[in-house]
């Protein structure tokens, strides 16, 4: 979990201060084309080499953190918000609201999300980062909503919620102060999952040619590298870093999720610790 948080933090830092860092510490602007150094392998000047149009790969990778993370975060925010809206409302209010919301949720679960995302994103004018994030988010909330609904339904019946209700607490306050806080582990796990899901979806869309062409993200980097045959031409320094970054971010969120899982489901944690003990003892 610690390692995961560290990696995630690094990515967030890169997203926040990456531009400044690239320009001032590395002396490289991710957007600058350098006609004289095209397809250069890593060197002292370009630590991770250059791309087919002479951009600094390291600076691009750092800048890509922002592009990818923005898509990941925004889409995750949207899908989590929708998930909460649909899942928690359906679970908490029950009745007709539940029937309707749950039906919509199930409908979205059976819709081919990636294909739809691809189609819609491919069609919208000017697929900016935000548009892509929006589409990914709008089509990706249903799974989360389903589990939130189940959890909320179980929480709604819990004694502490009923007890606060019996004290005269209003329904809104019950949702926000009794139910939601207990869903945080689930929600944060969902959110992290959605972040990496968004990053991966963005990369997949970019690979299929649907991307926000004006921003640098790890997805567009891979796409550019692929378009310009980085692998065939042996430009590993161009192809590998963005993929690794995505994988690292994914692993990081996975590890953080492990941690959250262990908090939410102590048995997993106990088993892990026991296993460590056993390994140590052996």
């Amino acid at each position, binding site marked *: 979990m610690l390692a995961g948080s560290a990696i995630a933090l690094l990515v967030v830092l890169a997203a926040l201060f990456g531009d400044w860092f690239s320009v001032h510490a590395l002396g490289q602007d991710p957007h600058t084309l350098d006609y004289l150094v095209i397809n250069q392998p890593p060197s002292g000047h370009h630590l991770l080499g250059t791309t087919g149009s002479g951009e600094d790969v390291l600076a691009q990778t750092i800048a890509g953190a922002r592009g990818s993370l923005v898509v990941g975060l925004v889409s995750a925010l949207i899908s989590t918000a929708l998930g909460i809206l649909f899942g928690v409302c359906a679970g908490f209010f029950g009745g007709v609201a539940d029937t309707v919301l749950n039906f919509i949720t199930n409908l979205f679960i059976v819709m081919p999300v990636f294909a739809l995302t691809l189609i819609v994103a491919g069609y919208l004018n000017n697929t900016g980062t935000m548009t892509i994030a929006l589409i990914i988010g709008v089509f990706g909330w249903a799974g989360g909503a389903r589990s939130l609904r189940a959890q909320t339904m179980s929480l709604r019946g819990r004694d502490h919620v009923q007890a606060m209700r019996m004290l*005269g607490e209003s329904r809104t306050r019950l949702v926000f102060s009794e139910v939601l806080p*207990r869903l945080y582990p689930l929600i944060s796990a969902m959110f992290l999952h959605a972040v990496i899901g968004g990053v991966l979806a963005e990369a997949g869309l970019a690979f299929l040619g649907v991307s926000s062409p004006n921003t640098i993200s790890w997805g567009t980097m891979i796409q550019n590298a692929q378009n310009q045959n980085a692998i065939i031409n042996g430009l590993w320094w161009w192809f590998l870093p963005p993929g690794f970054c995505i994988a690292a971010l994914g692993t990081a969120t996975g590890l953080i999720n492990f941690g959250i899982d262990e908090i939410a489901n102590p048995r997993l944690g106990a088993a892990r610790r026991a296993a460590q003990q056993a390994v140590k003892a052996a």
Partner: protein
Amino acid sequence: MTDLKPDTETPVLEAVAATKHFAAGGATVRAVEEASVALHRGRIVALVGESGSGKTTVARLLARMYPVTGGEIRLDGSPVGRGHPDREYLRRVQLIFQDPFASLHPGKTVLHNLERPLRIHGHVRDRAEARARAAELLERVSLLPAKEFLDKLPHQLSGGQRQRVVIARALAVRPAVLLGDEPISMLDVSIRLDMLNLLTKLRDEEGLALLYITHDIASARYLCDDVQVMYAGQMVEGGPKEDVIQRPAHPYTQLLVDASPDPARDRAADGTADEDGTTLGEPPNLADPPSGCRFRPRCPHAMAVCAEAFPPRTELGGGHWAHCWLHADGSGVTTT
């Protein structure tokens, strides 16, 4: 202990022939059938019965967590509406849940738990006052030193302490009636008595009307003034506790009392029935209950009439009553 006659004043809270049916997957669960119970100021009524007999449902009907299917709930003698209870109602009637571990939000401090009801019902104006009031409440439930407990989280408290917080929280709204749904069954054996003593204290000092729901007849006898016995959604017997427990009139009450462990029971005397491999059968399925008296299929005294109708209430004297055809002729015989 006070010895007010139940009939001399209007009950604070009363269920009159309350009936509750649940719809569950196409079937109707007849959870409670024409159950009546009256709670009086300064008296404790115990409701005992097997699991699934409808005790919790009665308590929740009284708390208006869901509406009655039939009959009515009366507060201070006047019938209440069917919708969600308003704050006024909740200020008078409070419910305490069985599991103190589950009825406190794990992330909220004791203070928060006490402050909310104080605020909701407008008993305090500001934080400082809330804190002072909360401390007072903790003192009333003997959580001492009160100040130290205010900022603790539930997991820092033992089960008994948590249940005290739960009771204090209910008291914060200044109710007239406390409905305790098995309030001690999740607690450690050694601290249960303290809890019962606390409830007694509240009854005596604050004149609360209390409903005490339990499986455990012995604790009911220890705590309450009156006992009512439920079976499969029906009230089968009730009255002053010693009358009911020492001289049970209904065969089910007899079974219950016999089955309850008693440290003083002579083991050798019991041994004769050991070999008995047969069973009494199961409590009925409430989705499809037997006609008439629902105890009939398990009753050693079952008669033809038992299948025909639910027996009427027979007064056995001294406030002791039963619903059983054995007594319906008014003879008041106790069959043992």
